[in-house]
């Protein structure tokens, strides 16, 4: 079975976590189905004509830019990826850059793009980009970071020696899974910044919407009492609906 081809089509789990969307929504938002056989009729096989290959970039799969880059008539060369076993780079990690003009510098991971084995390091590995250039306006030059491959481009920094190091996933005595630096056997903790999503930096500092969000104490209340009633019987009892007639017996053949 060509498992890597199947896995490569999927959106990374860190992307799903960051988006705070259900995975099915993300899949639906970027899929391009051109033809689908009607469902529920025995004469139709389960045939789907849809786009198979997508070019994942720094644009996230649910955005309009992604849709634009993967437009129906746009076909780009296939990107070959080195399979990464267990993902070990998270937002907020201190990494050292191993390639390019900023080789040897250390920085903080600001974005993770698992679909391409990329991380973006804040303020490093940058180029200048002119935006908003017009006939009458020269544009504004901004500095933008280029992504780096996690396989060759960056390495995690050992917290003790502050040197780049290989890491290993191990279990503590308590059964927690941790990253351990191979150089000094120190645990490299997963940073708090990795909890960030589109909606909040971390769950504790999320600002609740008074009109739409149910508070924690209301949610924790248990209002269910077990009774010998079906859901409909419960509702009828509560609303005071009386009914004495019983539908005639029905049989299935």
């Amino acid at each position, binding site marked *: 079975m060509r498992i890597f081809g199947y896995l490569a089509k999927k959106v990374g789990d860190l992307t799903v976590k960051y988006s705070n969307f259900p995975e099915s929504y993300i899949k639906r938002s970027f899929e391009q189905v051109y033809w689908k056989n009607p469902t529920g009729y*025995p004469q139709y*096989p389960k045939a789907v004509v849809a786009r198979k290959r997508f070019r994942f970039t720094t644009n996230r799969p649910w955005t309009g830019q992604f849709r634009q880059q993967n437009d129906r008539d746009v076909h780009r060369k296939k990107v070959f990826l080195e399979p990464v076993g267990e993902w070990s780079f998270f937002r907020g990690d201190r990494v050292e850059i191993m390639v390019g003009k900023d080789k040897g510098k250390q920085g903080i991971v600001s974005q993770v793009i698992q679909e391409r084995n990329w991380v973006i390091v804040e303020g490093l590995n940058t180029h200048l980009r002119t935006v908003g250039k017009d006939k009458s306006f020269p544009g504004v030059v901004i500095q933008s970071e280029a992504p780096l491959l996690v396989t060759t481009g960056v390495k995690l920094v050992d917290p003790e020696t502050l040197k780049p190091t290989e890491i290993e996933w191990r279990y503590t005595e308590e059964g927690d899974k941790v990253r351990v630096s191979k150089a000094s056997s120190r645990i490299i903790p997963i940073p708090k910044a990795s909890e960030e999503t589109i909606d909040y930096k971390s769950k504790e500092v999320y600002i609740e919407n008074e009109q739409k969000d149910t508070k924690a104490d209301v949610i924790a209340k248990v209002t269910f009492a077990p009774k010998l009633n*079906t859901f*409909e*019987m419960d*509702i009828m009892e509560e609303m005071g609906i009386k009914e004495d007639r019983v539908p005639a017996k029905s049989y299935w053949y």
Partner: protein
Amino acid sequence: MSKTSSLINFISKRTISLSAPLEGKRNFRKFPIPNKRGSRLHKKQQAGPNPELEVDRRGVRDTGYMLNGRFVKVPEMIPELIVPDLTNCELKPYVSYKAADVIQSEFTAQQLFDAVYSKKIVTDYKEGKLDQEGNPLEPSKEENLQPDEAVAAARRTGSDLL
């Protein structure tokens, strides 16, 4: 869709037919046209009381029945949505991210039995109100409930689950 019927689609079908339906299939095979195909006689039979094929109502339920060529509307067959009064409801459309994740086990039949019957059984046992077979001498309302009565009570709601 059953597995066998989807497999049949892969077998090439070579037939000689002079009838209109297969002729028409060439153009209309990519989308369903329910209840519209076939000869006049066939469609007449489909409209009658004994249709040859199942009539495709496209997921819509009947709200009555035909009697002597007239349609009789049955109010009980029309679904009625009962919406509870939500004026003092504290629940809102979403759950705050600050709320802790609740992981709950499935509510099983055993737990329902424990909640409804177990307390009464224990007290009856302690007070000696059980006969030799373990049946209660003074059964409660729930203990008196017979299976067919319970089904009837559930069906009285008009629900088609049972």
